[in-house]
């Protein structure tokens, strides 16, 4: 069973988004997603400064077995990417909700977060995929 913390919002495509105190949104992939991918060996990040729409492709995460797209869960500008993942992509497996974050967005409209799934609804998405 995968871990789904309550303080995040989720996209059905398995990204999580967390609103920080400074008004930025941190994005990563869920525990369910990292388990399904297996050992992560490469992460391709968006360019800093890129303006992105929700649902738009923002990067790629590659495990040994396959490549998967990462989609932006909210609109805004990419202001930071996690430098640690370049040399230690396995951090995504080890700590998907902490050290394994992907990038931060300065959101153009915080209301986008309300469109995302809460932990309970996201758990249903994962259950449906498992069965």
């Amino acid at each position: 069973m995968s871990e789904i913390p309550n303080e995040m919002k989720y996209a059905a495509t398995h990204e999580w988004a967390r609103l920080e105190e400074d008004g930025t949104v941190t994005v990563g992939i869920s525990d369910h997603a990292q388990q399904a991918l297996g050992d992560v060996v490469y992460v391709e990040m968006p360019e800093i400064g890129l303006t992105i729409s929700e649902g738009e492709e923002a990067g790629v995460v590659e495990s040994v077995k396959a490549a998967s797209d990462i989609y932006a869960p909210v609109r805004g500008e990419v202001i930071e990417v996690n430098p640690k993942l370049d040399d230690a992509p396995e951090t995504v497996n080890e700590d998907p909700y902490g050290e394994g974050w992907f990038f931060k967005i300065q959101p153009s409209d915080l209301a986008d977060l309300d469109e995302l799934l809460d932990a309970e609804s996201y758990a249903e998405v994962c259950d449906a995929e498992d069965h």
Partner: protein
Amino acid sequence: MTEKTPLYDSHLAAGGRMVDFAGWIMPVNYGSQIEEHTAVRTDAGMFDVSHMTIIDINGPDAEDFLRSIIANDVASLLVNQALYSALLNEAGGILDDLIVYRLDDGFRCVVNASTRQKVLDWFALHAYADMTFAHKPQIMIAIQGPKAIQRLSAVTAILLLDELKPFYAMPHDDWLIGRTGYTGEDGVEVMLPVEQGIRLWQQLRDAGVAPAGLGARDTLRLEAGLNLYGQDMDETTSPLVSNIGWTVAWNPPERNFIGRAAIEAQRGNAEEKLVGLVLEDKGILRHDQKVITNAGDGVITSGTYSPSLEYSIGLARVPKGATGECQVDIRGKLKKARLVKPPFVRKGKDLVSKS
């Protein structure tokens, strides 16, 4: 319909993450594919390969049949010796790759799971009068790694396993133990009756042999430069453009196996070749990506992250004259790569170290 091997419950008990593979529900990993890969390179791991098809061919015509239908020649085999070969269609395309053992009383072929029905149909179509095919359910376990033989000897008390030469087999009661594999490491593949197979799997687990899934099987075989049927070669490619020209027995010239005329015409002037590829930039090579070489464009047939080398490697079909530095189109970005001669890793050793 998905089929289960007799070891299905053993996989679940070991935490296997099960996936559909060629109509079979098989473990892709038991947690970490990289750890399973490393266990095989440094110690011992085991794979359930019971989904592969074992076909016994017996009778006075069995040898002539095999000499007419596969590109390698079984006439040269001693009893208990095995060879690797391709099964060709009339156009010289590869219908399957297989291992053939000469046994005391006939031959045993081991063919891929994904091609089972196709091969059985092809065999039936070209069968000779005085021979029989038998396909009995067995368990097949590949035990691979530098300590594979030691571990198997310890749990079975079978003597002289370490004296078995590569590509030779040893019958033992109802078992057949072949010193073969698909990993580039030492090891054996054991074919045995179902109940005994389930017990052997458990004994090996208790002895510390790591169960390894299809994921590790793929990274190990790719590092060893071994082709995967359906990906690196298929009915549209001949052995000569698939880096397995060495498996074609051209002598004696009068042995007219199916596909011979077609590949004879290609001999010495094939326009393409299958080579190894090492990615020098960051990223991961994948099946179907375009390769831009000094002699024209090619395509990646298999690509992966190599857990042993810690960078990405692949196999690619490229124009005959291609060598050295090249580029790969990964999602629209051109990345630096280099053509090399496979294998990449054998017996734990890096054979292609980056410049």
